[in-house]
C-alpha cells in the first residue's frame, strides 16, 4: 500500500524535551503473515542489496538459519524452528528483525542525543553519525535486535527502509517477498488486514491464529500474523508479552532523575552543612568541650 507519510522526527534519544509532534500524519506498519512465509530468505538478500550490506560467508552449523544470528550487516533473518506434537510437525519460520515498537526500548536506553529517532510515521531509525557504540540500545530492546558492528562499533538494525518509505515506496523486503507474506501500509489498515487474515486462518483450522501486535511496547510497526498465535515462543522465541526489561526501565526511568537528585542533594546538604556548622579545624579548636 502506498501512502504519504511524514519523516518528521517526533522522538529523539537522550532528549528530555519533546520533539516536534504537532503534525498529524499516518503511521505505517509492515505485516508479516507467517502462514504464507516459505522462509526463502529473499527478504534477507533484498535487505542486503538495498542497504548495500555485505554479510560474511559463514559456515553451516546444522541449521537453515544463515547467518546464525542477526548481525550489523544482516538486519533481518529467517529463523527456523521444528515443532512437533502428537498430531503434526510444523516447520515454523519467522522473519526476525526490528519490530519498530511504538514505545521503543532502544530509544529509551540510548544515551546519545539523536542517535535513535522515531519518525512521525512510527519508524524507529538509528543515526549512526550520532551513535557512540555503547550498546545500550541492545539492552533496551525487548526483542534483542540491534547489533554493534565489529567494523565501526556503531549500532545497526532494520530502518524499515526509511529511505524508500520517504519517497513513497514500500520497504525492500516487502517488495521482494515472493508469496506476499510481507505487506506494508498504514498501521490501521495493517491491523485490520492482519485480523482478517487471522480470521481466515481460523477458518482453515488454525484455531489459535492471531495478530501479534504486543501492547507491552505500545504496539509495533512490524506485526505478525501467527497460525499458532497462542504460542509465539515456538517461533524461535518470539516473546509472548514483550516489554522493555524492568531493569532497563528502572535504569533509564526512575534511576535517572533520582540519581541526579541524589547527587544534587548530597552537594546541597554538604554545602548547607558547611554553612551551618562551619569548618572543623583542629588548630582553632572550636570544639565545645
Amino acid at each position, binding site marked *: 500500500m502506498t501512502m504519504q507519510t511524514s519523516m518528521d522526527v517526533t522522538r529523539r534519544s537522550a532528549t528530555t524535551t519533546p520533539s516536534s509532534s504537532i503534525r498529524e500524519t499516518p503511521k505505517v506498519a509492515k505485516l508479516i503473515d507467517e502462514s504464507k512465509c516459505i522462509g526463502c530468505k*529473499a527478504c534477507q538478500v533484498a535487505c542486503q*542489496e538495498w542497504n548495500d550490506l555485505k554479510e560474511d*560467508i559463514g559456515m553451516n552449523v*546444522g*541449521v537453515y538459519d*544463515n547467518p546464525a544470528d542477526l548481525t550489523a550487516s544482516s538486519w533481518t533473518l529467517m529463523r527456523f524452528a521444528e515443532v512437533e506434537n502428537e498430531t503434526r510437525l*510444523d516447520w*515454523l519460520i519467522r522473519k526476525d528483525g526490528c519490530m519498530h515498537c511504538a514505545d521503543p526500548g532502544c530509544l529509551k536506553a540510548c544515551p546519545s542525543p539523536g542517535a535513535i529517532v522515531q519518525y512521525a510515521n512510527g519508524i524507529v531509525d538509528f543515526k549512526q553519525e550520532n551513535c557512540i557504540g555503547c550498546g545500550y540500545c541492545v539492552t533496551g530492546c525487548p526483542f534483542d535486535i540491534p547489533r554493534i558492528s565489529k567494523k565501526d562499533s556503531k549500532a545497526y538494525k532494520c530502518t524499515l527502509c526509511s529511505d524508500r518509505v520517504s519517497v513513497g515506496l514500500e520497504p525492500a523486503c516487502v517488495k521482494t517477498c515472493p*508469496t506476499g507474506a510481507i505487506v506494508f501500509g498504514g498501521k490501521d489498515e495493517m491491523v485490520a488486514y492482519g485480523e482478517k487474515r487471522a480470521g481466515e486462518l481460523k477458518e*482453515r483450522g488454525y484455531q489459535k491464529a492471531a495478530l501479534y501486535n504486543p501492547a507491552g511496547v505500545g504496539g509495533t510497526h512490524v506485526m505478525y500474523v501467527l497460525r499458532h498465535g497462542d504460542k509465539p515462543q515456538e517461533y524461535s522465541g518470539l516473546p509472548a508479552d514483550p516489554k522493555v526489561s524492568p531493569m532497563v526501565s528502572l535504569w533509564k526511568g526512575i534511576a535517572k532523575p533520582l540519581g541526579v537528585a541524589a547527587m544534587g542533594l548530597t552537594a546541597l546538604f554538604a554545602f548547607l552543612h558547611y554553612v551551618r556548622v562551619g569548618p572543623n579545624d583542629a588548630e582553632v579548636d572550636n570544639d565545645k568541650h
Partner: protein
Amino acid sequence: MTNHWVDIKNADLILIMGGNAAEAHPCGFKWVTEAMQHRKAKLVVVDPRYTRSAAVADYYAPLRVGTDIAFLAGVINHMLSNNKIHAEYVKAYTNATFLVNPDFKFDNGFFSGYSEEKRTYDKSTWAYQRGKDDFVLVDETMQDPQCVFQLMKKHYSRYTPELVSKITGTPKEQFLKVAEYIAGTHTPDKVMTICYALGWTQHTVGSQNIRAMAMIQLLLGNMGRAGGGVNALRGHANVQGITDMCAYSEVLPGYLGAPGDGDVDRETYLKARTPKPLRPNQMNFPQNFSKWHTSLMKAWYGAAATKENDFAYDWLPKRDTAYDSLAIFDRMFQGKVNGFICQGFNPIAAIPNKKKLGTAFAKLKYLVVIDPLRTETAEFWKNYGAFNDVDPSKIQTEVFRLPSSCFAEETGTFTNSSRVIAWKQRAVEPPGEAKVDSEITARLFLKLRAMYKAEPGAFADAIQNLTWTYANANMPAPEELLREINGRAIEDVLAPVDPKAPPVPKGTPPTVLVKAGEQLPGFAMLRDDGSTACGNWIYAGCFSQAGNLTARRDLADPSGLGNYPGWGFSWPANRRVLYNRAGADPAGKPWDASRRGIAWNGKAWAGVDVPDIAPALGPESGAGPFIMTPEGVARLFAVGLMNEGPFPEHYEPFETPVGTNLMCPTNPKAVSNPAARVFKGDLEQFGKAAEFPYAATTYRLTEHHHFWTKNSISNSSVQPAQFIEIGTELAKEKGIHNGDMVKVKSMRGEIKATCVVTKRIKGLDVNGKKVHHVGIPIHWGFIGVAQNGYLSNTLTPYVGDANSQTPEFKAFLVNIEKA
C-alpha cells in the same frame, strides 16, 4: 506448463509432488498462496522431505524416493474404484473408449513384447483395434474388456492402499487422505493443478511419473481448464525456449523429429512424421509437418534449398544412435569424442558420476568452455585437493575458456515455463572482453566457413550455404534472429483453394494472404512449396508485420483469470492455456461458469484465450480437443510412444533400498525399469542395499540456483556451505549430532559435509523394513565465493529415464557415517 503461472490462482487444490515449488520457484509459488488466500484452495504436498512447500501446506504426506508411480497408481485405483472421475470428460476427451489389440498383455512386471537381451519392447501389440475404414474401434459404453478404460481399471486395481503403503512407505491413512483430496476435484466445479519439477523427471521412470499424473488429471477432467493442467516447473529462465529451439540431437526447432539413418530420403522422413487421423473429423494437426519442416529448411538454406534438392534434406545430419547427454559423455568416456564445446553448462557438476565425467574430459583433445563464470568443468584438470584430486600434468586436453555475457548484457527473448516469450533489453556491455553468446557462435562459425573456403575439407555445402543475411555478420542482431525464427513469406502466400466454394471466374487473381517479404502472422501461413521460411514454427506470429509481439507489455486481463493476452507472446499462437477446448463440455459450454476459458457461440469458438482448435470447427463436428494427436483425444493408454509401457507401472530405482518390486516380487528382471538404458560398466557401478542401506536424493535449496549463485556473495551468505540432511532417528542410530561432519559414500565416490539433523525427514516403514533417507543439496563445488565443497554428483548413478534419458538424481543408495 500446459497452463501458466498466474493461472495457478484459479485452482481449488494444488498438489505439489515431484517438486518443491516454494523453494525452487518462489515467485511462481505466490499464485499458490494467492489461491489459498482468495480461493480458499488447499495445498497438498507429497515429498520424501518435509520441505518449505510443506511448511505452508494444508496437508503433507511423506513417500519413499522413487515410488511416485505406485502412489499415483494407487490414487488412480482409488478414483476408479470409488467412481470419482469426471465421466463425461473421460468418455469424450480421452481414449478410454478405444479398443486395444487383444494381444496386448501385462504379466508380472512386463508388458507384451519385451526383449531381455535388447532391454527394449516391441511395441506392436500396444495398438488400437482398427475398423475397415482404418479408424479406431471404440466402445462408447466402456464395458468391452479390451477398451482402454477396462484395461486401465484392471491394471490399477492391483494398487491397493495397503500395497501402495508397503511400497511407498506412506502410512495408509495419509495416502488415503491425499487420494481423497485429489479425487475430490472430479466434479466440474472443482479443479486441481499439479506442480511438479525435477523430482519427477530425474528418475529412470521419470516420464511415466508425469504420465501417471496426466492420467489422473484427465480422469478428473482437469486438463484444458483454468486452474488445472499438468504443470512442469522448469529449471532455467530460458530452458523452455532452448527446448523449443530444440538444442537436442533428436529434434529440430519446434519439436520436429530429426532424421535418423532410417529416414533415407525426404519422402520417407515426412511420411513417418505425418500421421493420418485415427478418428473421423479430427484436426490431426501434425498432418502439417511437411509445411513446418520445409519452412525450416528455407529459413536455414534460403535459395539453396530447392524442390530439386529436396529442400536440402540431405544436408541435415542423420543420427545413427542416441546422442543425449548421458550417451555423449559415455562416448567421450570411451574415447570416441575428440572435441567438446560447452556453452553455458557445467556438466562435471550437472551430470552424474563426477569421476566418470572427469575421466571422459581427460580423453578429449580439446575442450571449449563458453561461460560468463568460472566453472568446475573448465578447471576439471586443476587440483583442488580432496574436492578434485587430479594431476594436471597427466591431462593432455587443451582447454579454451571464452568469456560470455550474462542476461543483463544480452538483448533478446526468454521463454518462461508457461511458454510466454518475453523480450528483454540489455543494460550494460559485457565486462572486459566478454561477448554475447550469439556473437561468439557467429565468429566461430564464420571462421570455420572461411577456412573451408580457403582449404576445402569434408562436405561443406551446408556450411557455405547456411543463410547469413545479418547486417553485421559477426554480430547477428537479436531482432534479426527473432524475425528469422518467426518466419516470412518468400513469395506471396496464397489462400488455399476451398473445394466447397463456388468456382471463381477465370482470371480472378488469387487472394494473397501474406505478401512476399512480409513477416508471417502465424504458422497457419506456412507452406511446403518453398514459399515460406520459418526458423521455428511454434514461434510463428511472435514477430509479425505488427512488430515484435514479445515486447508487448499490455497489462489488460479482461477475464480476471490472469491470462494477460497482451503481455509478450505465448506460443503457440499466443495461446495461454493449452487444450482449452477441453475446458468446455462436448457441446461447447464451459464446464464451470466461474472459470470460463473458451466457449462455442454458435458460429465460432471465442473467449478469453486463443482457441486450441480451429475457430470454426464446432461441437457438431466431433473434433476432439487434443488436436496434436491423430485421435483428437488424450491418451490414457499410450500407443507407441513410451518405451516401458502404455500404462505407468511401478519400478524401483536402479539403486533400490528394498531390492524387490512388490508389484511383481517374483520377477527379478523387473525390479527396476526393464527398458531403461544402462551403459557398459555402469551396471557394476550400482550399489546394493547391503552395503549402501540408505535412500539418497539430491535437491536444490531456495537460496541457490544450481552452481551459479555460489559465485554471488549475497546468496552465498544466506546459505554458505554444503550440508547433508538426515532424520533424527537415523542420526541417533549412527551417533551423529547436529552440526557434525559426516561422510556420505555411494558406489561411485564419497563426499564430506556438515550434517543437519532434522525432524523433517522420517524413517519410513517399507514392507516391514525401516527405510531412512539422506538428503543431499547440490549447490556447492570447488569454485565459488561460497565455502568450497564436493560436487554432489560424485555420488549419483549414471543412468537415465527410459524415454528422456534424464539422469536418476533423485533416488540412489548411500551409506553415511560420522567423519
